[in-house]
């Protein structure tokens, strides 16, 4: 399983438990071991995707566009193992925590913008990023992925965590996921899909590449 982990992410022993970890300044009170900090899959959808063995296609020093950075829990780990990382978050309150994660990470760039309107940050985020990580809890998550396709290199990867309840709380999550996947097919080829149920209720992890 660990074969699929990106360079810079390792399984390490924290108090007898084998956990994912990256190297960097602690951000949210996570356990540390020297310069390694544990990556909690129950607090991070990307962490859960890696924990479940999904293949992100990272090969070290990748440029990443992270949509829905929130308080920076996950994006801080991404910046630890990847290269230049653009973190887009709309809400000012969580962005305050994101900012403190960015202060100790010279290649993490916080942007207060709405992931649904990429033209408001296309003058800052570079083209041909190696990966887009998306975790936005709004309606129209497939739309956001399609809109942001413009940033992704042709051989890049989209790592998407779909939250069923953000689309429609009353529908069966399986139906919501089917709709999201169908909409994604317009611009992406889905390589892998997995329910993240063990760690996050009603979430689907998707890895896709542009068509």
């Amino acid at each position, binding site marked *: 399983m660990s074969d699929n982990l990106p360079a810079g992410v390792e399984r390490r022993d924290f108090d007898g438990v084998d956990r994912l970890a990256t190297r960097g300044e602690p951000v949210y009170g996570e356990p540390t071991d020297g310069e390694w900090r544990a990556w909690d899959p129950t607090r991070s959808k990307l962490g859960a995707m890696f924990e479940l063995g999904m293949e992100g296609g990272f090969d070290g020093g990748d440029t990443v566009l992270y949509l829905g950075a929130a308080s920076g829990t996950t994006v801080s780990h991404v910046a630890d193992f990847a290269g*230049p990382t653009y973190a887009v978050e709309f809400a*000012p*309150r969580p*962005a*305050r925590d*994101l*900012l403190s994660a*960015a*202060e100790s990470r*010279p*290649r*993490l*760039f*916080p*942007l*207060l913008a709405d992931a649904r309107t990429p*033209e*408001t940050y*296309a*003058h*800052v*985020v*570079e*083209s*041909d990023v190696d990966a887009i990580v998306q975790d936005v809890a709004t309606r129209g998550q497939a739309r956001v992925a399609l809109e942001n396709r*413009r*940033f992704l290199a042709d051989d890049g990867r989209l790592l998407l965590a779909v939250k069923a309840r953000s689309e429609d*709380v*009353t529908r069966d999550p399986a139906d919501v996921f089917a709709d999201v996947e169908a909409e994604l097919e317009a611009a992406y080829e889905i390589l892998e899909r997995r329910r993240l149920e063990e760690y996050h209720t009603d979430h689907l992890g998707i890895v896709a590449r542009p068509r």
Partner: protein
Amino acid sequence: MSENPDRGWFDDVDPDGLEGAREAIEEGRADAPADWPALAVEAGFAVDEDAYYDRLHEATTMAARETIREREAADDRQLVHAVRAMDDCERTANELAERLAEWAGTVDPDARTGVDYARELASRADVPPEERRLVSLADRVVGLADEAAALRAFVEERTPVVAPNLAALAGPVLAARLISLAGGLESLAKKPSGTVQVLGAEDALFAHLHGRAPSPKHGIIYVHDAVRGTHPENRGSAARALAGKLAIAARVDHYSGELKPELEAELDDRIATIQARTDSGGDTDE
């Protein structure tokens, strides 16, 4: 900046002082991204890509920091924090008062419940040493209750400044609660009146959406006299009418800030009509 597709955020920014960087990052637009690090090096903004990324980091963190500070200092944010703190203080004071009453019952035959009794207990002189902890706890309860009252006064004073129409229609505390539940005045202004009507009744609303319950008639606006003072049979209508006016008031407050006293008159008129249905025992249709 949007006309030329090749203009990055750094084009008009001084590379050394990063003057104008925040404006460029926040106001700039581009339809498509480009290889900005390479273009910036080409344009002489940075000697190499590493130096570009250093400047980008400095500029983005600076812009984000200033924007966050500005938005957090905005008055409606302050109000939201104040009203939430007020509710927390009140709740905690009441909880501790219960605990205190239970304890006091074992030493004081005249023990009563509530904050008033805590106040009485805290003001006692000549406390025997074995009751000192009890009296000290009473003191904390009083402190929390006083803080809640001070916060309420703050909310009552600030809400009419932030949202004059909403405060006039709903009363300052209910207005602040609505802003808090919506997550800010702007979010409240963007909500349809049907949502305003059930703000604070999310559990009941989702139970209804899952098909397990009837639709809620009102959320937090229940505490408004227009709803509470109406016969239960017509509370749904009253809540709908009130929510409609509150939604309009929030929009006026957010987008124009002008005072519109006619809203209050219209609401009073409408509520009087609704309440007259039961007063006269007559027709109940809309």
